[in-house]
């Protein structure tokens, strides 16, 4: 077991190192001089040289890479070219939008998807089942950004129940903040809940085939109690795993959804930084993102290894 975890940790560290190197190499060859970008159309060569010197862009690539990695390890993410503030504070600020948004979307999709999936499995091959599966098919097919546009049209522009976009900051009150995140979270959660409903249905159906369920039923345990005590507990393992793994899909979705709702989150920061050629921010964000996803995979792997020793081999 220990050696299994150690191997996984080593793989994790290696993956992160390779990621950082690849990202650095890839982004360093981007066309466009960030210093020139900051000074715009009227920049003189001296202007640009001044900025290059200030940001150390004139030093050799290897030195810049080592400085960057060193900074990453010590928590110093560097200074944004465009905003000229520490990136760690920039990311911390934006995470205050994206993380609650992602959390709300996960909770929403779980609270819609899991009950619906369980219901469909419990009533497998009935009309209820077909209806739930039909709705989930539809949910899978709706592009989340389009759903977002429709939500804005209906609930913000026409009915005025929710703000159309933007984020007032948590300083304006927790309720006001949550209110602005509801529509984007719904848009983000829709396809997720459809996926979850389908997964839950299959997981529950599979668990229903297990011997212990039949035994429990044979012993006279009521149907809801069987479902609660035996079926769901077993079915939830794959479902929760998927919830963890959907994280990367959620962040990718956030890039689009934060654009639809003009939310100052991490996805938008990524999009803007690329447009403004703020390479340092892009590098940090990608590494951060990769680290999170790889870490999620690691947790899931280890959890699986603990649950099922047969999986420790690979």
């Amino acid at each position, binding site marked *: 077991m220990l050696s299994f975890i150690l191997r996984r940790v080593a793989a994790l560290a290696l993956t992160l190192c390779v990621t950082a190197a690849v990202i650095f190499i890839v982004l360093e060859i981007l*066309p*466009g*001089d*960030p210093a*020139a*970008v*900051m*000074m*715009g*159309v*009227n*920049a*003189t060569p*001296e*202007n640009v040289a*001044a*900025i290059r*010197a200030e940001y150390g862009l004139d030093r050799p690539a290897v030195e810049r890479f080592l400085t960057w990695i060193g900074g990453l390890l010590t928590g110093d993410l560097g200074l944004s070219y*465009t*905003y*000229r*503030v520490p990136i760690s504070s*920039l990311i911390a*600020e*934006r995470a205050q939008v994206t993380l609650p948004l992602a959390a709300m979307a996960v909770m929403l999709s779980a609270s819609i998807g899991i009950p619906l999936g369980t219901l469909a499995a419990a009533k497998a091959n009935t009309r209820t089942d077909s209806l739930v599966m039909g709705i989930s098919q*539809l949910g899978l097919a*709706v592009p989340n950004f389009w*759903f977002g546009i*429709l939500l*804005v*049209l*209906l609930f*913000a*522009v*026409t*009915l*005025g129940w929710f*703000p*159309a*976009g*933007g*984020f007032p*900051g948590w300083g304006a009150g927790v309720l006001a903040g949550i209110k602005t995140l509801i529509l984007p979270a719904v848009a983000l959660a829709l396809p997720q809940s459809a996926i979850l409903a389908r997964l839950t249905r299959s997981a529950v159906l599979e668990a229903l085939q297990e011997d212990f369920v039949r035994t429990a039923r044979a012993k006279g345990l009521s149907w809801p109690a069987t479902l609660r005590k035996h079926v769901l507990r077993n079915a939830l393992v794959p479902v929760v795993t998927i919830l963890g793994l959907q994280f990367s899909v959620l962040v990718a979705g956030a890039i689009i959804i934060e*654009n*639809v*709702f*003009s939310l*100052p*989150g991490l996805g*938008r*920061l990524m999009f*803007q930084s*690329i*447009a*403004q*050629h703020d390479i340092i921010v892009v590098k940090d964000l990608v590494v951060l993102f990769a680290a999170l996803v790889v870490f999620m995979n690691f947790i899931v792997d280890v959890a699986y290894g603990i649950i099922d020793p047969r999986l420790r081999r690979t």
Partner: protein
Amino acid sequence: MTKKSLPFLAFAALIAAAPGALAQNRDAAVLCMTLEPPILDPTAGAAQAIKEVTYNNVFETLVSIDSASKLQPRLAENWVLAPDNVTYTFKLKSGVKFHDGAEFTSADVKFSFERAVAPNSKNAQKASFTPIETITTPDPLTVVIKLKQPTARFLEGIAIGDASIVSEKSAATNETRPVGTGGYRYVDWRRGDRLIYTRNEAYWGRKPAIKDVSYRFIADAQAQFAAIQAGDCDAITNFGAYESVDALRKNPALKVMVGSTEGETMLAINNAKAPFNDLRVRRALAHAIDRKAVIEGAMNGVGVPIGSHFSPAHPAYVDLTGAVPYDPAKAKALLREAGFPNGFSTTLRLPPPPYARRSGEVIAAMLGEVGIKVSIEPVEFPQWLERVFRNKEYDLSIIAHTEPLDVGNYARTDYYWGYNNADFQAMNTRANAEMDEAKRFQIYRDMQKKILDDQVNVFLFMLPKTTVAKKDLEGMWQNWPIPVSPASELSWK
């Protein structure tokens, strides 16, 4: 749920939205704009947004430009130009303090201008200060600036945000914590969302009417629309979704003002590159483009057509819009004459603003009608600067030149248009040195005609400024002689 709500949505969207019914807080205003400034020091970056949020708010200039494009004394009480035409003497306002309590004196002016031309300066308008030979400060309230040669537009050059007066003590930190002399002081900046100011209670001049002002940054025009309809914004400084303007006009709580900017929008041509080094080809492009249809299709009909690189708002403007009319047959004939009976293929590199992307699509289709196959290549602004503007790697592009009176750019031999004409350069030198206004304006007229004669670019329209504001918010600039939105001029009716 999606299924059910669709027909309803289609119907509901047609109904004008109800305006926000909340009572207006008369001590606060939220101004929404498209682009967020990267930093807040107008003397250290090129982005227009920096100037838009700081000009006459946090920072002030010796002389400022008002909404009617007139020069007004600001930190300078008055000024005199000596008969030698090169010596300006500025008398400064007394009792002016920076937000950190430091006294404003002639030393700050000297420091600011010398910093702007220093070798390591990040000032984007260095050229405004290069005519300066010496700056002397005989006393704390007097500045004497001696120029190298007579410079007709020197005062205009120091009236822009890039010439803001900063204090030596705070200059280094102005990028993130700006300290100026203006009527508003910096409170907080939530990057990606909004910038927050509060009134400077120790302001030397007339106190701003509204205490708390914030600038909110909403990149997407549709989100701006929704925000002002919902009452989240009190004004939008320049609204970009032209098709939505009519819906805003129907909202009784809002007013819409369409004004002008100094942004000459054009199809920029790489004059140095074949086949565009042939005047007949450039003229053919001009004949192939229906300016009216471009304005209709790309700008929803808003935008004043121009025939040359000059603002119709300027007294020296000559109307040349009819000089090269829309005439596809003539365009084809010219192409044939130039050796392209079957047209040719070319690329059109488009920067991100919607005016460029949309005009580009219309123009590509129009050029296609006369046989020029245009492939559209959208680029982000950094790539546009690098490839089109700096390295001149382009055939055609679309861009608005927003600086006021910038026809002198055609005299820059290294400029991205690749236009190099000795006659024009001579005219420009004469205009810059000509202190007599009437004579200078005559030269400007000749310059406008000259660049059209050479068809350096195809001139399309002036970029409009569409201001949307709540009915009882007064003082928004209708026109943009310079693109700024001073909150100090706002008040609630």
